[in-house]
């Protein structure tokens, strides 16, 4: 037998006991052809295009799950940034373009639709302006649509007008979904250096440089990595820890690569990328915080956390790079708070703060993610938190993002339940000395010297 029984058992244990799964198969879909100067006609075309695709996506993924015995947790669709096609019409409320893909997605079991998005890192076009204004209503009246807005980039700098506007939108979205503790904000992410092929939500969209349809896969596996690190002897040195993580990341990535190839073949579209991000879930043990603790930090957020996270993130990339030649998306460990039981525990223990999460952002992927803050947090404070995350991304030529939820009527220490993959979030304390005047100045933080690469 080519494969040893031990290897078979190892794989089965990864799946049955360590939460190995493919987090998402995300079909990127161009809506360029749907642009129309009539909003209703455009919504109809969007619905038809998504409907046609969604119908096949779910059965194909289910057949693959069954054949390979690896669960595919989410089946998602990422579309062309809606602001791009919405520019063709002059309607102010673009909610119909969110409702249009939401209904067919629900009917056929597609979990999320990403792409109610705009890219405004250098300037806000009229379509962008209308889309951004429609976000609170669109997200609070749809179930599966996710929204993202790129407000900064290394090449353009930080568009502070857009940052401040998005802070207003976040507060409006929280108010519009007050009955669900501001859940609309859980479907809204603000980026610096957004990528065009990200399969993960809420930031997935189908970029302008992509083909009409493409399959992108997001792997998972914090539980598997944690199990491997926990099984090492106490005195294993850090080089050996990194080596063990690397070997595990290779295996996880290979599973992702295979599923991506197979999904693309069966759907008759090209394979895009495999995203190596370690994405935690609220399931016990499926936690990035617990990997950090298994490496040797008493509680995630304590001194040493950034070092452990840097080691983890780098080792995953090195192992993953051997596993696929199509690395893309965000490809860095995720550190969402609500979606990771270990992070929640760390916040409750007082070990993990917003400031430490910001530091952690500098060595991994999208940092200030799924963080509940008091409902009365000022718009300017939210803007300043986001601009700090953008500054890290801009200067370090990497993606950073924020997904903040100012929970209406809640204060520090309260718990908020979102359910499913979104988990539950402790409302976190926010530093009261915000750069209110800074964000109100508006304008653009100029692109850094590091952007001049040519």
């Amino acid at each position: 037998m080519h494969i040893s029984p031990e290897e078979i058992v190892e794989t089965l244990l990864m799946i049955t006991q360590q939460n190995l799964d493919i987090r998402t198969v995300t079909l990127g879909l161009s809506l360029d052809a749907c642009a129309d100067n009539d909003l209703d006609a455009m919504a109809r075309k969007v619905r038809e295009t998504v409907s046609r695709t969604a119908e096949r996506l779910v059965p194909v993924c289910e057949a693959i799950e069954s054949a390979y015995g690896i669960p595919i947790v989410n089946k998602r669709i990422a579309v062309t940034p809606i602001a791009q096609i919405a520019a063709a019409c002059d309607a102010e409320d673009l909610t119909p373009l969110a409702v249009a893909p939401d209904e067919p997605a629900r009917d056929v079991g597609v979990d999320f639709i990403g792409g109610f998005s705009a890219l405004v890192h250098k300037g806000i076009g009229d379509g962008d302006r209308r889309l951004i204004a429609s976000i609170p209503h669109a997200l609070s009246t749809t179930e599966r649509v996710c929204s993202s807005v790129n407000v900064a980039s290394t090449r353009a700098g930080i568009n502070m007008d857009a940052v401040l506007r998005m802070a207003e939108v976040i507060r409006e979205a929280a108010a519009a979904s007050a009955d669900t503790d501001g859940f609309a904000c859980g479907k809204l992410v603000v980026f610096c250096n957004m990528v065009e092929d990200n399969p993960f939500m809420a930031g997935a969209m189908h970029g302008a440089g992509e083909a009409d349809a493409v399959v992108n896969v997001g792997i998972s596996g914090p539980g598997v990595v944690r199990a491997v690190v926990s099984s090492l002897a106490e005195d294993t040195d850090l080089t050996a820890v990194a080596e063990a993580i690397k070997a595990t990341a290779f295996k996880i990535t290979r599973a992702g690569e295979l599923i991506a190839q197979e999904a693309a073949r069966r759907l008759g579209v090209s394979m895009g990328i495999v995203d190596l991000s370690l994405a935690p879930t609220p399931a016990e043990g499926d936690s990035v915080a617990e990997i950090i603790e298994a490496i040797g930090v008493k509680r995630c957020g304590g001194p040493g956390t950034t070092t452990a996270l840097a080691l983890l993130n780098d080792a995953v990339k090195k192992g993953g790079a051997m596993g696929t030649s199509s690395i893309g998306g965000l490809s860095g460990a995720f550190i969402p708070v609500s979606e990771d039981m270990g992070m929640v525990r760390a916040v409750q223990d007082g070990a993990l703060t917003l400031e430490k999460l910001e530091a952690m952002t500098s060595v991994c992927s999208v940092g200030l993610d799924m963080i509940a803050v008091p409902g009365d947090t000022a718009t300017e404070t939210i803007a300043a938190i986001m601009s700090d995350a953008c500054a890290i991304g801009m200067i370090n030529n990497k993606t950073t993002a924020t997904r903040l939820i100012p929970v209406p009527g809640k204060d520090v220490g309260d718990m908020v339940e979102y359910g499913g993959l979104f988990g539950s979030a402790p409302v976190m304390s926010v530093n009261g000395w915000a750069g209110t005047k800074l964000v109100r100045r508006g304008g653009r933080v100029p692109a850094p010297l590091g952007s001049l690469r040519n």
Partner: protein
Amino acid sequence: MHTPAILSVLGGDRVGIVAGISRVLADSNANIEDIRQTIIGGVFSMTMLVTVEEDSVPFEELQQRLNDIGQEIGVQVTLQREDVFRYMHRI
């Protein structure tokens, strides 16, 4: 279409596990290429490399038949395409 697959069986040891599984495979025209079996602490563990003749019995149909016999005997039977193991464990 010949599809290589890995069949794994886990459960309490008892009479007739190998016979039951093998009969379903034979009836489905699936060939057993290799077989390993151990009992650790009373838990029966068997892995087989089989070739599924999908023209005779489609993969999903064979999975269903194996599930049924697994339930009948009281063991957990999993049939997965072989390439996932090759991908994950070989460079």
